[in-house]
Each structure stands twice: as structure tokens, then as C-alpha cells.
């Protein structure tokens, strides 16, 4: 469990705001290369990690997790060392105040998102702030700041991984590094002579800002089967049962009109037979994950979608349970060892 925590902590710490995933290229290659035969990257910023089966001409199984995370981009520098920013990906302005951030300028600097204390806020102003009412405080004077930071530089949550009870962990970027961790763990555990597929693990770029990375890399791979992995809503207070899965109860299998239903059913049958627990989650129409784009890419791809339950999505303190990451790896391993004929 410690090894898993360490790997996840390292993955979450990689700078990877959407569109700037390349900043972590060397780090991720160093971390993953022991478990793969070949690593490629494309013009969009996707990273492709290949693990070959011992068998000749094995079919291709694409396992996708997005590598990017939500963040911000500098839009203006102000007197007093403040920055205005815009959101990259969906951010809730009601949780940004008092958040610590790293600004990726010429060098990394520390900042804090501004807030208004109750002493000043007065009565009747209890509405959510607009993005342009929040500033990042850097503590530098404007001239010094201009030498370090430019408009267009990205800003990332600074929130390292901590551990709670029952193998739960808190960090920024667990969406989707929890799944990245599950995929690398799968490759780490699998034995080439048992593999019925060549594994194409894709760490895709820009999921949070348009979900375009995965479809581009899928177009290149032309996989026989693609399994998209992403986080999904944990069943917390105020979250509907139909929208969510329970934290700590295993990975979720998504059933959606945008996934390949026969494939999804076969996977569930195989898991039931092997007595591997999973949770079902229904998304009657779109899934709003990389699944949707990958399924219609090129000549069309048979896809299934799997989820790890996560609390407080798109915040600096997302929560997942390590057991669910292990559960996802176990399920993926089972699929990767199954002959393709049994899945189609």
C-alpha cells in the first residue's frame, strides 16, 4: 500500500494543467518506463505506453486515462503583486478562496487566492465570487513579478497528498491520476505470457478542456477494444444515488449508450464469474468522458468505461480510496488476460 501511495503522490505532484502536460514528460517517462516496452508521444501532448504480449500479432487493447488536471491561466498582472486568472476546466469559484497555488512562470512561485474576511464582507454580500473578483497574491512587487510571470503562464493547485483513515487519500489532481496510477499498476502486475492483448496505455492530454487528446491517440492506435478510465462522483451528501458510486466499494463499470453495451455486458459476466466485485453506474446518454469521442473516432471503436469514485471533484482536495485503484487494476488485469473472442 505504501508503494501505491508513493506512486500516486508522485503522479499527483506532476505539473499537468490541461495543455501544459508536457511539463511532466520526463518525470512520467522515468516513472513508467520500467513497466513498458515502448513509449511514444504525439504532437498534441498525448503519451502512449506500450506493453507487448508474448504472443505474435495480439489484438490491441487501449487503456486510457487522462493526464491533465484543471487549473488556471494568468490573464493580467497588477500593482502589489496580484494576478488575475481565468479557469482552465470547470472550477467552482466558491472553493477557490484561500487556496494555495503554484504559478509556473520563468520559475515556480507560490501564491494564495484572495478572500474577503468577515470583518470587511459586511451584510448582504453573501454571493459566490466571479472569477475576475479573485486575485492570486504572490507577495512580490509588480516589477519583480513581471520578470517572473507572463500572461499565459499556468497556475496549478498546490496541495500535496495526505492520508486519511481506511486507505483514503486527499490530493489535487486525483482526477485523473488515480486512474493513471491504476493503469501503470496494471502494467506493472501483468505477465507478458498471460497477456492476450498488446496493451496500449494512453495518458491523454486536454480531457478537462474538450476531451480531444484521447480521440487523437485512438485514431493512431486503431484499437480492437478501448477501455476508458476516469473518476466519477462519490456518493456524498447532496449527490444523487443515480449520479454516483460509493467510495471504497470497488471500481465502477459504466453502462451508457455511448459505451459498447455487448462488450460492457461481457466484462460484467467475466467479473461475476471470477467473483471480482464492482459497482454499476448508469449514464443513459453521454458519459462526458473521453469515452464518447473515442467511441466514434476513425472507423468507430468498441469502448467500455470504468470509474473510480472520488469526492470533491475539481478541487485541491479530491478524495479517493486506494482500494478502488487496486480494484480497477484487478479488473483490467482480468480483461487483459481474457481472449478477445470472449469479449466480443
Amino acid at each position, binding site marked *: 500500500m505504501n508503494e501505491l501511495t508513493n506512486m500516486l503522490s508522485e503522479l499527483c505532484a506532476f505539473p499537468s494543467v490541461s495543455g501544459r502536460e508536457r511539463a511532466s514528460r520526463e518525470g512520467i517517462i522515468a516513472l513508467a518506463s520500467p513497466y513498458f516496452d515502448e513509449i511514444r508521444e504525439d504532437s498534441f501532448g498525448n503519451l502512449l505506453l506500450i506493453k507487448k504480449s508474448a504472443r505474435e500479432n495480439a489484438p490491441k487493447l487501449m487503456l486510457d486515462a487522462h493526464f491533465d488536471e484543471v487549473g488556471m491561466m494568468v490573464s493580467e498582472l*497588477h500593482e*502589489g*503583486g496580484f494576478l*488575475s486568472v481565468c479557469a482552465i476546466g*470547470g*472550477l*467552482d469559484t*466558491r*472553493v477557490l*478562496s*484561500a*487556496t*494555495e497555488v503554484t504559478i509556473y512562470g520563468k520559475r515556480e*512561485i*507560490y*501564491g*494564495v487566492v*484572495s*478572500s*474577503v*474576511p*468577515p*470583518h*470587511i*464582507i459586511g451584510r448582504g454580500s*453573501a*454571493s*459566490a*465570487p466571479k472569477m475576475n473578483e479573485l*486575485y492570486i*497574491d*504572490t*507577495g*512580490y*512587487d509588480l516589477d*519583480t513579478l513581471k520578470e517572473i510571470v507572463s500572461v499565459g503562464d499556468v497556475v496549478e493547485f498546490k*496541495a500535496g497528498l*495526505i*492520508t*486519511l*483513515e*481506511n*486507505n*483514503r487519500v*486527499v490530493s489535487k489532481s486525483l482526477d485523473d491520476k488515480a486512474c493513471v496510477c491504476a493503469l501503470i499498476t496494471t502494467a506493472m502486475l501483468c505477465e507478458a505470457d498471460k497477456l492476450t492483448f498488446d496493451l496500449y496505455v494512453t495518458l491523454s492530454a486536454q480531457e478537462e478542456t474538450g476531451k480531444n487528446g484521447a480521440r487523437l491517440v485512438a485514431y493512431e492506435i486503431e484499437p480492437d477494444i478501448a477501455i476508458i478510465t476516469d473518476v466519477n*462522483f462519490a456518493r*456524498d*451528501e*447532496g*449527490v444523487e444515488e443515480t449520479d454516483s458510486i460509493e467510495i*471504497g466499494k470497488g471500481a465502477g463499470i459504466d453502462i451508457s449508450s455511448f459505451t459498447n453495451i455487448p462488450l460492457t455486458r461481457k466484462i460484467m459476466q467475466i467479473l461475476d464469474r471470477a467473483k471480482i466485485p464492482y459497482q454499476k453506474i448508469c449514464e443513459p446518454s453521454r458519459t*462526458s468522458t473521453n469515452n464518447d469521442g473515442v467511441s466514434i473516432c476513425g472507423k468507430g471503436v468498441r469502448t467500455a468505461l470504468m470509474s473510480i469514485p472520488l*469526492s*470533491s*471533484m*475539481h*478541487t*485541491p*482536495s479530491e*478524495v479517493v480510496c486506494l482500494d478502488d485503484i487496486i480494484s480497477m487494476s484487478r479488473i483490467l488485469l482480468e480483461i487483459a488476460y481474457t481472449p478477445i473472442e470472449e469479449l466480443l
Partner: protein
Amino acid sequence: MKKLLKKLCLAFGPTGLEHRVESLIEGEILKSMPSDAEIIRDNLGGIYLHIKNEGAPKLMLNAHMDEVGFMVTTVAENGQIKFGSVGGINPLILGAKRVIFENGVRGVILSKPIHLLSHEEREKCPKISDMLVDIGARSKEEALSLVSIGDYFTFDSDFVEMGGSQIKAKALDDRHGCCAMLSTIASLAKNNARSKYDLYFAFTTREEIGFSSAGCATEIIKPDYAIVIESKAVLDLPEISEDRCVGRLGDGALISYADGGAIMDRALTDELISVCKENNIKYQINRAVSGGNDSAPIQIGAHGTRVALISAPSRYIHSGACVVDYCDLEEICKALYAFVTRG
């Protein structure tokens, strides 16, 4: 001094449970306490150092030891924790923040994902009564084996040096004031300096909930004069007019003629200002009548006290990420030392 400030800020001491801060302060006092000085304790957890000068006018310096925090009120069936705030906290600084309990258990304040928020929810300020802390417990029983109803918790926030000379931490309000008093005590000892006052350094409790023990300290000490060292919330952000910004970080110690709680003694305040001028100490005058602090109960304590207020201009106070300029803290220390040792 920065090291001491860090220790003070990281100490666990929400209102009502200040004893860890108190023992830290006692340890520091003992390092530089004159042999004829006396430590006094009150019934509410306050600790005072009396540096005697019998027959001289009594001057009390005051800072509060407590910080804003939270208390466990109920635990839900799923093991998540409901809480109330101890002291005034803007709910907008709470979502997705990490917290730490007195016994070291850690948690996170959950935040409903933006994807599932209705348009109305996105516009509205959340309520603390709707918030939950996740400590990872899977049931009510498990949660209650780790924390109890009535337990306190605070922000889990590091002490960070940022930018040119700024500091970010929790509890800077008012641990920087405690630190300034301890630094004054240490300077007096180091320079073997005497004061023309019968001097009291009062470290008090319960400021953040408005029923402060500073009034009780005033009753016990009966000072002629008092200087309160506090944090003053400023809003020196871009596009905020000068009259709304209160004061500015880096422009020096912030001296108030009045705030939301008291109109300070004019003569004492002017004297403090002239001491700053004579000693080239950087200071600024508070530009807004806002906020309140222990100057109010001290002014009307006992027979009434002539009170002055010197503050660190502070951004984002009552959050886990308060920001001050360390240079302003140094100016406050210089001002206090010059004031108590002047002829």
C-alpha cells in the same frame, strides 16, 4: 523571531483551548524573565508577565492567544462530520480545505462537484451548516472512535514564506501579536533595559468569540494605559479604493484612531505615533472604521483604561491562508520596544 512566529502559528489553539499556545509562551517568557518579575495566571487561561517598577504608571501590552477554528457538532451515519465555526469565518474560504483535529486526525471539508451544481447553487454562498468533514471513517461508530462531539479542529496549513517578505499561515491573528510581545520581553532582557512604566504583558484568551478575557486582565491589572497588538483585516487588492482598503501590507505598523469597537485614546495614540516618527519606524494610519478587538473590553474594563491599538495589516484573516508582511511585524516590535523604553 521568524522561527518563534512559525511555532506560535502552528500551535493548536482555537478559542477556549489555548493551553498549548500558553505553555509555548510561558517557555519563551522563562528564557528572558528578569529575576524580580512575576508570572500571573487568570481563571480563563491567560498568562501575564509583570516587570515591576513600583509606583510608576501601569502600562499593559495585550495580544490574544486564540485563533478561529471549528467544533464537531454531529456525526452523520456515513461517518462524515458536521461542525460549527468558532469565531467568524466566511464560508467561501472553507470548501475543499484540509483540517486537523486536536489529536492529530486529519480531514477535508467536502465540496459538491461543480458538475452537479445547479445554476442557483453556483451563484450562492454555501452555508457552514451544510458542510461536512471527511476523515475517511466508514460509519458513525468508526468516526466517533476517532473524534468526539465537541472536539475542536483547525485549518491544516503550513507556515510559508512567500514573495519578497511575506508570510502565509493560519492563526497569524493574533500569534504575531504574541510574538511581538515576546520579542519585546527578550529585547528588554538582552539590553538590560528599564521601562518608566510598571509593565504588564498580558496574553489573553477568547478574543475571537467576542467575550474576551482581556477585560478580566484589565480588572486584575488595573492598568493606566494599554496598547493592544492585533491583526487588522485589510483589503489592499487591485481595484479597491483607498478608503475601502483599510491599510496596505508593507507600509508599516497600522495605527488606528478608531475601529468598529472603540475610539482609541487620542493622547496615547499620538504619543505612539511620535515615538514612531522619532525612531524612524514605518507606520500608517488606519483608513477605515471597521472590525473590533480587545481594545474595546480593555477600554471599559475596571475603571476604564487609556487604550491605543497597533496592528499588522493582514490579508485574508480568519482563513487557513492569512498573509502578512514580515517587515510590518518588525516595525511593530521596534515601536513597542521604543515606546516602553523611552525616557
